[in-house]
């Protein structure tokens, strides 16, 4: 690998950089990471291409590490998880998965159908509630989403539910009025709880490229996001954009979605994720 005293094989570093770019890490982050790897290789006298690749994996895993995983729910019920994101990323389906996961931990879950806009959104969440065996609070289509969340928190207190998970309508982060609507939902949720919302999760689609960075930035400006759920990791997309997001915004990745069934949700593992980029 070393073509001279202390000189690293640039061709192999190029290959590693290409793998990062191909995984949607983004060209600037990829170039920076490979630069750090080059420095580490010189300092640590890394000798083989395998070791070089492993060092890059550990670099990335370190970047992605965060103790704020997976869910931080207040001890006094009900806790509230607000799920947000742009259109079609997998919010509604991920909520079904979260409900299934929490139920498996013995928690009593209540869903809030606060997507009162999109065609059959309430029906979709209702079917999931039945399938996963949890309760749901819903109003009619066109109702005020904040009112649905408020009602759900009250219902959770009345019924002794541990966790409320609120679905919201998909919205492009560039739609100012829709982002204002979401801020209102969040304010009302806090008021209903009497304290901060436990988790505000941004659902990102692993097949989306660099636009996920813009999505994360805009949603983080509007709401106190607590983490990311990266859905659709069962395809061929690698979701590398979360490296840039973690690096620039510090948002922890909490879960990975790996399919359309309720059990297809796993807590995020930085080491596994980084290693999978080079599998």
């Amino acid at each position: 690998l070393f073509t001279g005293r202390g000189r690293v094989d640039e061709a192999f570093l190029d290959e590693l950089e290409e793998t990062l770019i191909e995984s949607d890490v983004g060209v600037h982050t990829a170039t920076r990471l490979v630069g750090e790897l080059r420095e580490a290789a010189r300092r640590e006298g890394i000798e083989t291409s395998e070791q070089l690749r492993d060092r890059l994996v550990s670099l990335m895993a370190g970047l992605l590490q965060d103790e704020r995983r997976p869910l931080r729910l207040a001890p006094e019920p009900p806790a509230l998880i607000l799920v947000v994101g742009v259109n079609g990323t997998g919010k509604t389906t991920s909520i079904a998965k979260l409900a299934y996961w929490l139920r498996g931990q013995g928690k009593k879950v209540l869903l809030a159908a606060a997507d009162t806009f999109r065609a059959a959104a309430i029906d979709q969440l209702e079917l999931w509630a039945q399938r996963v065996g949890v309760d749901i609070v819903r109003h009619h289509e066109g109702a005020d989403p904040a009112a649905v969340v408020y009602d759900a928190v009250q219902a959770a207190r009345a019924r002794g539910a541990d966790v409320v998970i609120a679905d919201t309508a998909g919205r492009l982060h560039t739609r100012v009025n829709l982002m204002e609507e979401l801020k209102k939902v969040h304010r009302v949720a806090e008021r209903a709880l009497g304290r901060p919302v436990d988790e505000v999760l941004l659902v990102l689609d692993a097949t989306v490229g660099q636009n996920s960075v813009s999505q994360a930035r805009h949603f983080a400006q509007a709401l106190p996001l607590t983490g990311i759920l990266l859905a659709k990791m069962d395809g061929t997309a690698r979701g590398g954009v979360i490296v840039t997001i973690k690096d620039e915004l510090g948002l922890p990745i909490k879960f990975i979605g790996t399919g359309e069934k309720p059990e297809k949700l796993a807590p995020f593992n930085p080491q596994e994720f980084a290693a999978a980029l080079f599998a």
Partner: protein
Amino acid sequence: SLTQKLQGVFQRLRGKGTLKEQDITEALREVRLALLEADVNFRVARDLCARIKEKAVGQEVLESLTPSQQVIKIVHEELCALLGEDESRLQYASRPPTVILMVGVQGSGKTTTCAKLAHLIRRQGRRSMLVACDIYRPAAIKQLEVVGAQVGVPAFTLGDRTDVVDIARAAVERAREQGVDVLIVDTAGRLHVDQVMMDEVARLEEALQPQEALLVLDAMTGQDAVNIASEFAGRLNITGFILTKLDGDTRGGAALSVRAVSGKPIKFVGVGEKPEMLEPFHPERMASRILG
């Protein structure tokens, strides 16, 4: 912007005397960065930059007083050439019903776009009918019925316990009986690497022999766009693409990627959630958007 970056590069290089071929290579690094930032697949970007370099070196850019402008012009031309013509037309059958099969990965906007197409076709004076062939997603059929009702178009369904090919065949029968001009077939989102689901849509295409098989793709798709496009175009006779959610701030490099890998036209773009928010594809506008 890319123009400003190229101006900066050439100003610096000019300071060292006349331009050489390696200076073009340096300038093109900025072009490659711009393309990658825009989510163009890295191999597509590399091939595109090689073609741009050939042209730039051959076109007296080296002697030009405004090399950055020349290079931008070449880049724009190459992008437009790759993005293709303004081909936002639907292929109609000589004997109705015309069948349009809508396919794509999960969440790309197929169901919503079915209603948009129905709305467009209705404005052109033809009668269409939606066909509910997503028998998996909870409330998918209801969603199609609701968006169909919003544009005054019925949705044909046999529920979610019947095979999609049987549903499709029955829909064709019904269309003939009722003199429906166009059938728009909604299908479930599916991974291009899910063999069972790709087999299903191949069977559906085989049974329907559609005039159009449109791949509905999210315009924010990243490097994976080439994989999705090549798998679908490999298994099906894809006749074109619809890129959705272009009302956001994505640069939309996926447009170049799907064109490079399939050669099929981008027919329409989705620019919002409402039924009228479907526009014809404009290659020059897309090229400017990708370059930022």
